[in-house]
């Protein structure tokens, strides 16, 4: 059997991190292929339900990336998102739903292809260290 490879869902802002991913690709920067990208219009669009849905569906890790504070295409979407994610992040760890190393947030501009590849590698390493998702996966309903 081949070695376990984590599945990571990445919600990337269309105006920055998604562009960085594109640029990283065009620039032939290397990072492992564990990341499934979902393009969103803004990190502020990432509803916490999306993140829970990813984990419920069996994602081993989730990564949300948006524009640097002050650079939001919609002026302040990422600043609202930052508060939202701060609370979500701590509550997910508090309830034991998400172990440390599974949920990641970053600010990456569209020019930062190198940072994108670096963070991607970091995210993958951290999720690998956390191991396959165990806690919060919806399988067959536990009913009579």
């Amino acid at each position: 059997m081949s070695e376990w490879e984590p599945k990571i869902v990445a919600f990337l802002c269309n105006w920055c991190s998604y562009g960085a991913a594109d640029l990283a690709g065009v620039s032939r920067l290397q990072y492992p292929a564990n990341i499934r990208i979902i393009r969103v219009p803004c990190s502020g669009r990432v509803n916490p339900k999306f993140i829970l849905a990813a984990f419920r569906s069996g994602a081993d890790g989730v990564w949300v990336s948006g524009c640097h504070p002050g650079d939001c295409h919609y002026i302040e979407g990422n600043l609202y998102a930052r508060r939202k994610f701060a609370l979500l992040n701590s509550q997910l760890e508090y309830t034991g739903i998400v172990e440390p190393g599974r949920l990641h947030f970053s600010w990456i501009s569209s020019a930062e292809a190198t940072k994108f590849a670096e963070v991607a590698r970091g995210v993958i390493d951290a999720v690998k260290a956390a191991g396959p998702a165990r806690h919060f996966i919806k399988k067959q309903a536990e009913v009579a």
Partner: protein
Amino acid sequence: MREYTERIREAAKRLLSEQRVDTVIGFRRGTVPFMNEPFLVKSVDQVDQLYWDSNCGINLANYLPKRTDRVAVVAKGCDSRNIVVHLLENQIKRDQLYILGAPCRGMVDKRRMMADLKGKEPLHAEENGKEIKVSGRGFQVTFDRQTYLQSNCAICTHRNPVVYDELLGDPVEEQQGVDRYPDVRRIEAMSVDERWRYFQELIAPCIRCYACRNACPLCYCPTCFVDESRPQWVGKTIDPTDTLTFHFLRAYHVAGRCTDCGSCERACPVGIEVRKFTKKLEKEVKELYGYEAGVTPDQRPPLDTFKPGDPEPFIK
């Protein structure tokens, strides 16, 4: 607390007959011990049904959103904070409200008294100052009110209403030096697997009746996320992952808005300490953004605003 009964009746009578308000929301005496029923008074002849004692733990702010009449409402400290939250969220207008502030010494916890009765059924309960006399078939016990406060009331730091039009009694002394979060710290200190097990066991008895959600004044969404079908975020059965998703998101939806009124926990028919979910968020909001829900009528709720320098140690 019973002394408020007369004052509530007097105020209701006055406000209705002077046509200051169209209705009055208070409680009437329950049909079983330790329970009172939220009650809408529409005319002066109903006023004498109004009642107050230490079993008025249901948050009356829950009955305010979308009301169109001029309404007087009896409000404890927590209720008044939820009224502030409603005002901030445009659920009701200040000028249609007449707030009868009830400085509060805490509501009693039916569940703990029942537990200490060890299966004996209380048939009558009468509150007298600091004591609650309970009697049933062949027994009589006296409970000390203070000892049997709801756990949220025991750590309450806003016993006096924060907004009101008149007070039903002199302000009570606020509790000083209260440690609000020993239980949160205890859970924080656990390992991640222990925390996971702790919350799994906590919600195991849940029957998905949504009493916690519906007793909460903050849960007024026209369609709750559990009822959405396209996409369906969460299954409707008592599957543990679905039940946890519900409790997690319910708590998250009240982050920065929850006043720790304890209605959710009080309403739960199976005795789940659902505040274990909300209190951590309350603590985080206080630590990260210095915000306490429902205390400041002129400050936006923490998730409806931001500061350029908000802490972001978790972001790469």
